[in-house]
Structures are given as C-alpha cells and as structure tokens.
C-alpha cells in the first residue's frame, strides 16, 4: 500500500486535517464524509425550481444573471475575431439598451487570452467595478489527459498572458480509481502555477466534471477535495460531457460551500456550466443559491454561470419586460 506524502502547501487541508497530510489521511477524511440522500436532494432541487419569480423580482433576477455570466466560447474553431466579438457582446450585451449590465467574465481557451485582454482594453478588470475578467480553461481542458508538466505550463502560460481566472479540470480517472492524493497534488500544483509575477494569484476554478463522477457521493467528495486543495471556485462541468450542470448537482455543491463557510468562515464560489440555456433555468439556479448558500452568493465573486446561449435568452426576456411584447432572435446578436 502506497502512502504518498501529499504536497504540504495546502493551508486549508492542514488546518482541517492536521499537519501530517498523507494520501491515506486524505482518503480517510473524504470517505468519512456522509453520503448524499439522492432522493431528498432531487426533491429539494425540484422544489426550488417551482418558485414563481415575476415582474420586478424577475427583472432583478435577469440583470443579476447577466452580471453572473462567464460568457464562453470553447470551440476548436475559435478565432481571434470570434473572441473579439465575444468581448464586444460581453461589454454591451444589448445594443438597444445601455442600462443592460455587463457580464462577469469571458471564458476562452488559453491561447485566446491575449486577444481577449487586448479587446477588453481599459475594461479589463479583476474585481474592478464594471470591468470584465478574462477566464482561461487550462490543464489540457476538457479531458485533462496530459502530464502534470504540460498542465502546469498550460496554466502558467494563460496567467502570464493576462488571465484573471483559471478553469482547471481534475483528473477524473484518478479520482474514480480512488487516487485522491494525485488529484489533490495536481490542484495544489496548479494553484501554485496561478501565481503571478507580483505574487498575487489568478482565481482558480476547479472543474469536477460531475457528469463523469457518476454519483452524488463522488460529487460531494470531489467538492471537498477541491476546496481543501485550495480552489477559489468549484465548477460542475466542462460543457463537453453530458449531463453537464444539473440543478441537484449544483444544490449539492452549494451545500458543500455552505458547510465550508460554517466550518471556516471562508466563502468559496460555485459555477455551474453547460446546459443552462434559458432564463427560466437560470432563475431556478438563482433561487437555489439564495436558499442554499445565501443571498450574498449572488455576486460575481461567488457565483458564475458558464454559458454561451443563455445570455441571448436572458436578453429576450429582458426585452419582453421592457417592451411588453415578446421578442425574437432577430433582436439579439448571433454568436
């Protein structure tokens, strides 16, 4: 039995698990987390989805949702031009309505970061009011099948190019075969690779790819693992695997984040990504956030929607509220 010494530069894990952090102690801790009541979780999520959000509440929810969106393009066919138009859309989602809020971030592949940064210009902001962050997927996204050296180089490259946020994928193969230490080490190492030249860190979002984790118990364990290893955000999916984000999984991750907050007083972010296409769905998530983690999570520092087509649907709903009649796809930009 191999008892690997786990990388020790994970302050959260040391605080919670104690000083001598080993693979087996990590495993013992994660396996000791109680299982998930799947039926209860799904019933809870379904119940949260039945709230009726209308008129002024709906208007507020739609604006909040826009300000929480990581506007995403992650295609093999991405070009600098596509990224520039994505940035333009993020800055001015609805050209007919200047009161429309901006999105939180644009999310692109690592090699597109310089173009996103350039296109944003003065609007590029890490936490600055009105600014838009640049998020980059890294670590051999979406599969994560590359050596650690390649993953770290991928990450450091994106950070050096100006990415404010790194979306990394965990090694699902290692996680599913129980090698939690390996997954943990990788997250810690990637976190370190997020360090900028001036000593600050790019925000690290850890993608669990819940569609490949099979059970809610695994999702809960992986969430704890990612948080212990230093994640600033836990994210459901790459969007490349079905099922992507679902409401029950997101509620479960929000519960982990809430528990972590109660345990340590530290707030971790959550990002469902993939499959959220309609305002109606997004409003269900907003209700779930407020009811599970708390309303203070409804801000870009603590919650994001990873989405591309969602924004257009929210804009159509916004136009409906503003004009009183139904809008159509001709009145929003084609992505």
């Amino acid at each position, binding site marked *: 039995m191999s008892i690997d010494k786990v990388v020790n530069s994970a302050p959260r894990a040391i605080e919670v698990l104690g000083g001598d952090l080993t693979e087996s102690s990590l495993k013992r801790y994660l396996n000791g987390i109680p299982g998930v009541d799947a039926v209860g979780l799904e019933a809870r999520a379904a119940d949260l989805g039945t709230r009726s959000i209308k008129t002024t509440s709906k208007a507020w929810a739609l604006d909040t949702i826009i300000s929480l969106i990581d506007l995403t393009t992650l295609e093999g066919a991405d070009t600098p031009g596509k990224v520039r138009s994505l940035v333009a859309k993020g800055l001015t989602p609805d050209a007919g309505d200047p009161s429309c809020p901006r999105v939180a971030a644009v999310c692109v592949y690592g090699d597109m970061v310089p173009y996103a940064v350039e296109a944003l210009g003065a609007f590029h902001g890490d936490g600055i009011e009105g600014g838009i962050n640049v998020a980059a997927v890294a670590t051999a996204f979406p599969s994560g099948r590359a050596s650690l050296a390649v993953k770290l180089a991928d990450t450091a490259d994106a950070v050096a190019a100006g990415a404010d946020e790194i979306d990394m994928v965990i090694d699902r193969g290692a996680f599913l075969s129980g090698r939690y230490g390996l997954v943990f080490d990788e997250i810690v190492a990637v976190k370190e690779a997020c360090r900028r030249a001036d000593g600050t860190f790019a925000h690290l979002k850890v993608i669990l790819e819940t569609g490949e984790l099979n059970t809610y118990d695994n999702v809960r364990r992986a969430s704890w693992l990612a948080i212990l290893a230093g994640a600033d955000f836990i994210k459901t999916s790459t969007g490349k695997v079905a099922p992507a984000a679902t409401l029950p999984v997101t509620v479960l991750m929000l519960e982990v984040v809430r528990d972590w907050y109660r345990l340590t007083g530290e707030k971790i972010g959550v990002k469902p990504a993939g499959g959220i296409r309609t305002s109606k769905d997004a409003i269900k998530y907003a209700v779930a956030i407020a009811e599970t983690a708390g309303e203070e999570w409804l801000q870009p520092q603590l919650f994001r929607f990873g989405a591309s087509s969602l924004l257009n649907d929210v804009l159509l709903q916004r136009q409906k509220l503003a004009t009183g*009649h139904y809008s*159509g796809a001709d009145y929003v930009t084609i992505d």
Partner: protein
Amino acid sequence: MSRLAVLKTYKLYIGGKFPRSESGRVYEIVGSSGEFLANAALASRKDARDAVVAARGAVSGWSKATGYNRGQVLYRIAELLEGRRAQFVDEIVAVEGVNSAVAAAQVDAAIDRWIWYAGWADKYVQVAGNANAVSGPFFNISVPEPTGVVAIIAPQDSSLLGLVSAIAPALVSGNAVVVVASERFALSAISLAEVLATSDVPGGVVNVLTGSPAEIAPWLASHADVNALDLLGAGELDWVDLQIAAAETLKRVLPPEGGSSAAAAAPSLERITAFTETKTVWHTKSLI
C-alpha cells in the same frame, strides 16, 4: 344496455405534440342547440409564445424542402382528410347545426381547396418569380421566398373550409403557421390537428391554438418573432389595433376581407404570394 358517454377534453397542437394549455384552462364547445360536445383547451399567451418558438424552429426545414416535396406532403393531407370525411361531416353538423348535405359540401370544398393549393407548391415560383430585363450583362432574377412564421386568425364562422382557406396558402411557400382556430367551431381544427400529426408535415410547421382570438391575437400581433399576420377571421376583433401592433415589428398583414370570411378567402395565388418575400439576384453573364 346504454353506454357511459366518453367525454372528451381536447388539447392544443404545438410543435407536433398535443400539450394542455400552460394555463390549465379549458372551455366548453357546445352544439348548435347549446348541448355540451367537448372541452377544448383555452390557450394562453404563453401557449402562443411556445407555438411561435415551435414554428420558428420548423421554418428552416419546411422552407428548404423542395416545392415538389411540399406539394406531395400537402397532397397527402388531403388524402387523410378524405379518409376522415365522415368524422368532419359529423362534427360540422353538431357544431354548426346544418344538415349533413351542407356539411358534406363544406368538407368536400375544403379538401378540394387543399388539393388546389398543394398543386401550387412547385408552381407558384414560376408564376410569381421573374427574370428581369436589365441594361447590362447580368442575369437579374427575382424569386419569392417564404416570409417565415405566419400567425393566422382563422375565420370564426366556418369550421373547416375557413380554416383550410387560411392555412393552406401560407404553407405552400414554406412558411410555418400558428393558427388560432374558430372559438365556437373548434372541433374541425382539433381534428385537422390530429390529421396533421399523422401526416408527413414536420412538427411545428402547423400549430393549432384553440381559445379566445381576442385574448391571443394581440400577443401574436406584437410578437417580434412573427413575420406576418393573417387577420382573415379577425373581423369581429379590434383589428386596426392588431395592425398597429404588427407595424411595430414590421409584419406583413392581411386585413379581414369582409363578408363571410370563408367565402371571401376564395382560392387565389395572391393568398400564397402575400406571405412571401421577393429575393432578387444579380449574376454576371459570361463575357462575350
């Protein structure tokens, strides 16, 4: 031994499926002497919105089908109508209170009209299109193309013939249709929906809403994703307001024609071309 009556509650026809009204409402369809015939779904504005979404999704497939293919598909519907002739006659007798000869005449006229329009599917372009003479070495060709999603208020005073007169011409060119059926005479529209569901018409090409035209029409008239509005059966409504609402989003509008709408909407090529847009293409002739 007497049988227990089988009471029917019909549903809407949206996107090739038969959903209940989102609102959960129904209304009673009564016969000519006031007796209960069936419940029909009372469509809400959200049903209209869903129908427009379904229609929009169906436009590209239906409009890209060849005219020949559309003609075949529409003709097949006429075949199915013919097979269900007795059912349509019975329903018209029940709701309109006419005798079976009059009802049969209406069904026959509707089927004939449907076939007449089906025949135009691969011919109207030849008649409505043109090779324009221009003063230069160019081919200049104008062709009609379907306008997109057409919302139709079906004639309120006719069960089947009015409905067919309204939807068939819009379908010929490749439009997708959201039709608000006659409120009182909705049975034929519901049966037609059942015919369409078992035909080769792709889901979403025809969407049938039953309910109050006065309630639904304003939402369709103002809907930005509807390209054209046929007010054939809106004579009793405040249709000038509907026209104004439609103008806000630049729709083509066919106003009511006055008189008995089924008779007024006599088969004509104009009803087909009313819901088309003309595309003109310039192409160089080869150098001489």
